[in-house]
């Protein structure tokens, strides 16, 4: 059974504001799925549709086979909104207790609440009203409230935003430990290194369209850039931009990194300039390379995926 099944999701705000177009993907139970894309790509819109906060203009979404937004679907999800904002007139512990009572699946009692507080690094802060929380503390509280229902699927919209480096690492470990406990995680992020490290599969959104949806290994395999090595200090390398606009040149090291489809023109250019090429090696790219590469291309130009 898929934890999430999105079919041809589309969202148009007003008459013209296209936020999502024909987005289809699935998330398997127990998986960590990362959702990446530039600002305004549609990540938050997609997540809000899954939670039931936004009605899709087209298509449908299922959460553990229940239509998104229904009570049955919402019983299965814990949601961390993109903007951490919680009522500030109530002590944080009481607020979490309130959320717990609304989530029917939560284990009862004070121990559960305080164990959540210590899990997210806020132990002993239950009595403090949220107006006294810092941004990062708010974000931690946000994670706690998404966990309070003990739901099997977590939809987290930028969980690491606003966290200090140590907290980001802790968050990463926490996400991994949640997977260990059998949770399915679906999260959006701009922290591509984290996404690369912990996700099983990734969806890349561009202008509301899903331009890639694949496992991390297959994404990184296919998109490998090539490193061309010439002798250090070869000035001719610097002139490669017209034939390979995305090339990254290090003249001092005599190295050029070019994406796969620009390899041939780059080699031809260098040969024409009489550069002695010592070697060509396929590199394992970082997710950032893959992402930037895809986002630069036109929408849908690089549609692929091991499954939708």
């Amino acid at each position: 059974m898929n934890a999430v099944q999105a079919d041809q999701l589309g969202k148009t705000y007003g008459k013209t504001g296209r936020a999502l177009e024909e987005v289809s993907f699935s998330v398997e139970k127990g998986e960590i799925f990362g959702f990446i894309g530039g600002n305004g790509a549609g990540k938050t819109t997609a997540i809000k549709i899954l939670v039931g906060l936004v009605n899709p203009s087209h298509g449908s979404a299922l959460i553990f086979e229940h239509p998104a937004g229904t009570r049955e679907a919402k019983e299965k999800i814990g949601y961390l909104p993109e903007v951490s904002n919680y009522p500030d007139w109530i002590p944080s512990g009481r607020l979490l207790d309130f959320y717990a009572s609304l989530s029917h699946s939560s284990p009862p009692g004070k121990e559960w609440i305080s164990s959540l507080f210590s899990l997210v690094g806020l132990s002993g802060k239950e009595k403090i009203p949220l107006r006294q929380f810092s941004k990062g503390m708010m974000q931690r509280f946000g994670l706690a409230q998404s966990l309070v229902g003990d739901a099997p699927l977590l939809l987290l919209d930028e969980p690491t935003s606003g966290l200090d480096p140590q907290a980001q690492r802790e968050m990463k470990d926490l996400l991994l430990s949640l997977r260990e406990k059998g949770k399915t995680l679906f999260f959006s992020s701009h922290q591509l290194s984290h996404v690369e490290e912990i996700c099983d599969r990734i969806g890349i959104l561009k202008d509301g369209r899903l331009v890639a949806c694949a496992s991390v290994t297959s994404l990184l395999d296919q998109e490998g850039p090539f490193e061309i090595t010439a002798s250090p200090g070869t000035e001719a390398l610097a002139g490669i931009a017209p034939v390979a606009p995305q090339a990254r040149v290090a003249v001092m090291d005599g190295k050029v990194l070019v994406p796969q489809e620009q390899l041939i023109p780059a080699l031809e250019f260098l040969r024409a300039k009489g550069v002695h090429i010592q070697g060509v090696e396929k590199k394992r790219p970082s997710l950032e390379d893959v992402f930037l590469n895809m986002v630069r291309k036109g929408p849908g130009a690089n549609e692929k995926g091991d499954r939708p």
Partner: protein
Amino acid sequence: MSDVWLLARYQIEEALAKKLFYIVVLMGLVLVGGVFFANTFELGHQGRVVRDASLSVIGVFSLALTLLLTLQAIPREIENRTIYPILARPLSRFQYLLGKELGIALVVGASLSLFYGLLLLLLFLKEGSFPVPLLGNALCNWLECVVISSFSFLLSVLVSPPLNFCFTIVAYFLGHFPVVYVNYILGRIPPVSGFVVETAKFALPQLEYLDIKTTLLYGDPISPLYFVEITLYALLYSGVLLYLAVLFFERKDL
């Protein structure tokens, strides 16, 4: 139902955390007391005048409290995005709206109890007996607040709070517009526009029926059945408006 109650409690706690709420309640209490003593000492003891003035003060303050709590209840939660962690839980938007309305109705009810409690106490001290019929007016007052609150709730999912305020105030005054006048107007205009006026009057809250102050002050008896009728009317009217509010609210992207 337990979810609705949880939401209502949350709404009550939020209202009780507002300073402005206490200020309005306190001002109401001070004015009820002030009007009572002013009328007693300056005009001599005139039961009817004292009652009339105090009840008017209570009417105005309960309306103010209702608007204070209702106008912003939903728009602010949407704007602050505090609505997300609530609606992401397994509850319907209907339960959410009902919980909020119930919470506000209870807070306004509690405030009215304070106002009437003070008034009855003062009258008791002055006259040596409790003017029990005033409790009927308390019920009417509360029903009026419930109706106004549901009207304003519906508008709050459709228009901005300032517009909502204007519309609700207009509806309040038109709602108090006596039906006899409406019938009089209906008799003098062509049937088509007459139909429009009649529909408009029917769609707006018929607050005139909830206004029993004059009858009470002149000591005319009111049958208990009348209270049952207006209670049913207020609940039915609020129910229909809540249903409409849910219809619009469910289509809203948050």
